[in-house]
């Protein structure tokens, strides 16, 4: 059973392709996450699925209903909680839930029981008679959640459910979302938060520039990388102070690279670099093509490290070299030895157990950053209703 099925879903805003022929199946009853940086196309996908936006091509079925052909039927089966806090500050929680019972045509006989049920579900009974202007951010978000659930939807769409909430509140929201899964609701959420995607989702799809670049359970995505990551950054021959300046310009160039690839044709190169034996392609085309002065030192360091027997794969990103290994503990000293053996001084060394950030890096060839807002215009008439 598939709660959501997307086939070839495409949406363009002017020259920008926000969604590029996306295929996706979400199983009935799972928590499915769409993970990607801002501008990757997540919100566009959700807005199409909740009938707020028409796709340019492709098909979207939610709970078996074609959302373009029969939006009203789809709306009855869909719950939608946008990323903004939408709680009406003049109304109490009970009044807002009452409003949503009317918007979803819940019969009068069921109304008050349903409202109390929702208040209980999100733990707002005590504050139910207070206007939401006096609520904390977390309470408002829980109220938004309750309003999206009042008609017992088959599929609930959450756009950035924990955006801007503090840590305990995020945990509480996650617990509510898990409780929904226990009730049999399929939850589709989009997030740019690695941690949220990792802890909450049964499966997730990583999106970048309107395409799905990887899809699996968080654990499987992580284990697909294998082992740990050591990241080294060479000190440029010209010395410490200048090295620091270079690092700054390198990160500037990195942002430039993102917008350049964001526009179109280069996207293919990015993913090819990610999937292939990343080393060569990444360092060759990735850096020089962007007009950045190629970090020859980094490239040389990479080729040295790539030749080591315990290294699974390497990847170059800006002036850093990521070395994928089985174990940080044994690899770290040998990486340092190899670098000094090749006469390359290092500026920084970091190591980590791979998380979804590394997964993102592997599949896109780019570090996971929030600067990538170029891909989708956020204003504009079509997206702005």
């Amino acid at each position, binding site marked *: 059973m598939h709660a959501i099925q997307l086939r070839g879903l495409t949406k363009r805003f002017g020259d920008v392709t926000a969604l590029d022929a996306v295929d996706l199946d979400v199983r009935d009853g799972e928590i499915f996450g769409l993970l990607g940086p801002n501008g990757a196309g997540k919100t566009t996908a959700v807005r199409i699925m909740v009938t707020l936006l028409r796709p340019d091509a492709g098909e979207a*079925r939610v709970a*078996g*209903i074609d959302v373009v052909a029969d939006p009203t039927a789809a709306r009855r089966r869909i719950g*939608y909680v946008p990323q903004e*806090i*939408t709680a009406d500050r003049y109304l109490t929680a009970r009044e807002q839930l*009452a409003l949503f019972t009317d918007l979803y*045509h819940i019969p009068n006989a069921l109304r008050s029981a349903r409202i109390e049920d929702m208040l209980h579900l999100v733990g707002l009974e005590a504050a139910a008679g207070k206007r939401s202007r006096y609520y904390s951010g977390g309470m408002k978000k829980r109220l938004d959640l309750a309003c999206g659930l009042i008609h017992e939807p*088959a599929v609930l769409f959450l756009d950035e459910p924990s955006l801007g909430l503090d840590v305990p509140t995020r945990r509480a929201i996650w617990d509510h979302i898990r409780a929904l899964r226990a009730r049999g609701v399929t939850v589709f959420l989009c997030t740019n938060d690695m941690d949220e995607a990792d802890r909450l989702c049964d499966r997730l799809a990583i999106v970048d520039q309107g395409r799905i670049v990887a899809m699996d359970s968080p654990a499987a995505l992580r284990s697909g990388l294998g082992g740990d990551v050591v990241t080294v950054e060479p000190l440029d021959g010209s010395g410490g102070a200048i090295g620091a300046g270079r690092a700054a310009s390198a990160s500037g160039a990195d942002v430039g690279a993102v917008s350049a690839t964001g526009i179109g044709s280069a996207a293919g190169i990015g993913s090819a670099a990610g999937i292939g034996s990343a080393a060569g392609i990444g360092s060759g085309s990735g850096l020089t093509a962007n007009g950045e002065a190629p970090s020859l030192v980094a490239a040389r360091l990479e080729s040295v490290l790539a030749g080591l027997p315990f290294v699974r794969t390497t990847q170059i990103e800006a002036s850093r070299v990521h070395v994928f290994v089985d174990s940080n503990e044994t690899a770290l000293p040998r990486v340092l030895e190899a670098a000094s053996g090749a006469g390359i001084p290092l500026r920084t060394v970091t190591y980590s157990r791979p998380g979804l950030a590394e997964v993102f890096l592997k599949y896109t060839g780019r570090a996971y950053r929030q600067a990538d807002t170029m891909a989708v215009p956020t204003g504009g008439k079509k997206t702005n209703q």
Partner: protein
Amino acid sequence: MSIGADFPAGPAPTSEPFSRFVQETRGQTVRWLIHLRREPFAVLFALVQPVILLVFFGGAFQKVGAQLSPEGNYRTFLLPGILTLTVFGNSMSGGIPLLFDKENGFLARLIAAPVSRSSILVSRFLTVNFVSTLQILVMLGMSELFGVRVATGIPGILLLIAIGLMLGLGLTVVSLVLAFRLTGHGDFFALLGIITLPVTFLSTAFVPYEAMPRWMQLLASLNPMTYAIDAMRSLVDLGVFRGGLVLRCVAALVIFDVVMMFLGVRYLRRQL
């Protein structure tokens, strides 16, 4: 490529289309009325403002405008204009809460709900014109204190309110279309500021039709405000329904409403 439907078609709607429309409109109207109740000062100012206009504007122009009314009271001449101006202001502002809803994401939720688009319009119309009607009643009461009396009595007052509602309907539609069309409330307020004065002066609100130059007469005759004002004025100061005039004005307002509804609903359907 087609996808097989794994799901049943969803719960059949439990009620008839019309009772669904009533329920969704009720829900939204109750929301707006709660807003009014919890912003009592805004409502109070809305009630006081036209009275101020009547008292001071009427006082200032009493000498020059006395001959405009049969009893020599400029306020009698002025009252219909101020009533109409009030309806204009309320109705044209009718879309503003939707602009705020658009900006904070609530409108997206509303549109993602299975509600008919006209319920949004109807709930705004009911709320706005509830306020307009209150204002009309308060102003008529205040006018009594200045010796201005609706010459046609209670039936005249009822007809006067009905004319106000007719003008309000078309203008509410215009306002909602603007709310969807414009990107932010800054644009909306700017536009409202620019059009209010010309629309008022290109009507018979302050000056009779006969006293206008030709080109103004032409524009005034295209202004729906003129028809509401002329009909109300006939009810207020002439003491007769003067069938022909009131009827012609009502017909003009009905045409205005029908055209605005037709264009507006078509536009909103396409948007949502």
